[in-house]
C-alpha cells in the first residue's frame, strides 16, 4: 500500500511539474510584455531579487524570461527531434520485422553500425556538416536516437508476426499491406508513442550538450544550453545564478516528463491489469 501511494505522489508531482512547464512556456511570453532580448548594461549580473527573481545576465537581461524562452526552444527542439527519431525508428523497425530475411539483416547491420559510434560524437559530426541553426540540431539528435526504437519495434513486430491471428488474416485474404497497417502497426504504436515521450528529455539534454559545446543552436537563441554556455565566465567570478537557474530548468522538466512516461509505461503493460482469473 505505501509503495503504491509513494508512486501515486511521484506521479502527481511529475504531472504538476509538467503542467507548470507547459503553462510557463505558453503563458509567460504573451503575459509579460518585456523583451527577453532587451539589453540593459546598467543592471548587468544582478543577483536574484524581487524585480528579477532569477537575477540578470552579463548583458542585464532578465534571467527568468531568458530561462522560460530557453525552455520553450529546448522543449520544441527536443519534441521535434524525438518525434522524428520515433518515426524513423518505427519505420525501420517495422520494415525490418515485417519483411524479414535479407532486408531485416541489412537494416539491423545499419542499426549496429550507428550504435557502434558514441552518439554524442556522431551528433557533433552531423551538426558540424551544416551551418548552425535549429534544423541541424533536430536532425542530429533525431539521427542519433532512432536506434533503440527501431530495435523495440522490430522485436515487437517479429513476435506478433508469428501469432496465429496474422495467419488468420492472411488466410482471410488480407494483403501484406493490410496486415502491416491494420494488424501489426496498431499493436506497436503504443510502444512507439511511449518511446517518443521517453525520448523528449533525452533529446533536450542532447540539444543542451550540443549548444553548450557551441555547436548547437545559434547563440542569439535563448536555449538552455546556450544560457549555461554563456554563463561560464560569470560562474568563475562567483556569480552562480546564470548557471544554476537554466540548469534547474533542464533538470526539473525532463525528470518530470520521464516520471510521467514511466507511469504510463506501467499502465500500458497489459500484464499489470488485474483481470479476472476465470
Amino acid at each position, binding site marked *: 500500500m505505501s509503495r503504491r501511494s509513494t508512486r501515486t505522489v511521484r506521479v502527481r508531482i511529475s504531472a504538476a511539474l509538467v503542467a507548470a512547464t507547459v503553462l510557463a512556456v505558453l503563458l509567460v511570453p504573451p503575459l509579460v510584455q518585456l523583451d527577453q532580448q532587451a539589453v540593459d548594461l546598467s543592471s548587468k549580473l544582478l543577483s536574484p531579487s524581487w524585480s528579477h527573481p532569477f537575477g540578470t545576465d552579463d548583458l542585464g537581461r532578465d534571467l527568468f524570461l531568458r530561462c522560460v524562452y530557453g525552455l520553450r526552444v529546448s522543449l520544441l527542439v527536443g519534441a521535434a527531434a524525438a518525434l522524428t527519431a520515433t518515426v524513423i525508428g518505427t519505420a525501420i523497425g517495422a520494415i525490418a520485422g515485417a519483411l524479414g530475411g535479407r532486408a531485416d539483416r541489412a537494416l539491423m547491420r545499419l542499426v549496429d553500425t550507428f550504435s557502434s559510434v558514441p552518439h554524442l560524437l556522431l551528433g557533433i559530426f552531423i551538426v558540424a556538416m551544416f551551418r548552425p541553426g535549429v534544423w541541424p540540431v533536430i536532425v542530429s539528435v533525431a539521427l542519433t536516437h532512432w536506434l533503440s526504437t527501431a530495435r523495440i519495434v522490430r522485436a515487437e513486430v517479429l513476435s506478433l508476426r508469428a*501469432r496465429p491471428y496474422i*495467419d*488468420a488474416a492472411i488466410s482471410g*485474404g488480407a494483403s501484406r499491406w493490410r496486415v502491416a497497417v491494420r494488424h501489426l502497426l496498431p499493436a506497436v504504436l503504443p510502444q512507439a508513442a511511449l518511446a517518443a515521450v521517453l525520448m523528449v528529455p533525452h533529446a533536450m539534454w542532447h540539444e543542451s550538450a550540443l549548444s553548450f559545446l557551441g555547436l548547437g543552436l545559434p547563440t542569439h537563441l535563448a536555449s538552455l544550453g546556450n544560457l549555461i554556455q554563456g554563463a561560464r565566465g560569470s560562474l568563475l567570478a562567483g556569480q552562480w545564478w546564470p548557471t544554476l537557474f537554466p540548469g534547474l530548468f533542464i533538470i526539473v522538466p525532463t525528470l518530470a516528463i520521464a516520471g510521467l512516461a514511466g507511469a504510463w509505461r506501467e499502465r500500458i503493460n497489459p500484464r499489470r491489469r488485474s483481470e479476472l482469473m476465470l
Partner: protein
Amino acid sequence: MLELQAITAGYDRKAPVVRDVTLSVAPGESVGLLGPSGCGKSTLARVAALLHRPDAGTLLLDGDPVRRWRHRAPCAQRTAIGVVFQQPRLSADPRLRLTDLIAEPLRATGRRDEVRERVAELAPSVGLTPDLLDRRPHEVSDGQLQRACLARALLLRPRWLICDEMTAMLDASTTAALVAAVEEYRSATGAGLLAVGHDQVLLGRWCDRTVSWEKLTSTEAGE
C-alpha cells in the same frame, strides 16, 4: 480435391517435422488427422492452408498446383480455405470487437457492403448472441472467442475447412456445439474438412475417416 503430395516441411531444412506425407481430402469429405502433440501435424495443416511453404512436395487445390504461399498466394486460393486454430486467444487480434473480428475477411477483400448481412447470418449459426458481438476478446470466454474464430473462417464460404485442434482447449458442450456448427456448414455447402487433433474418440465421431500420423509417416523408413 485438396491433395497433399509427398510433402516435406518444417522450420529447419536439416530437420523437417513433416517428411514425405501424402494425404488428400475429396470435396464434401471429412478427414480426421490423428497424432500426438508435437508430431508435425499442425505444420502439415499450415501447409494445406497455404500458410507454410513446404520444403518439397506438391499441394493441389482443386487440381491446380499451389506455387505461392502466404501473402503471395492468389487471394482466391487463400480464401478458398477457412482455418481455425487451437488457441482462440492467440488467433484473435486483441483490439477488434467480435463483429470486426468476424467481418475482417470481407473487409480485407473489399466487400464491406456485405458485412452487416453476413455477420448477422453467421453469428447465430455458431451460437453467438448479439450482445457478445460488441465485446473485445478479453471480455469473452475461450469458448465464445473460438465461436467467433469459426465464424470468421466460414465468412467467405470456403470450399475447404482446416480445423487444427479446434476444440482442444474447450469443454465437452462447447466442443459439441462447434463441431455441430462446422457440420451444418458442410452439409449446406458441401465443403471438405481436414480436422487435426489428438482425440481419437472425437475425430472418430466427427469425421468420415481418420488417418493416424504414424500410418502417414510409416512408409518412410528411418529413425
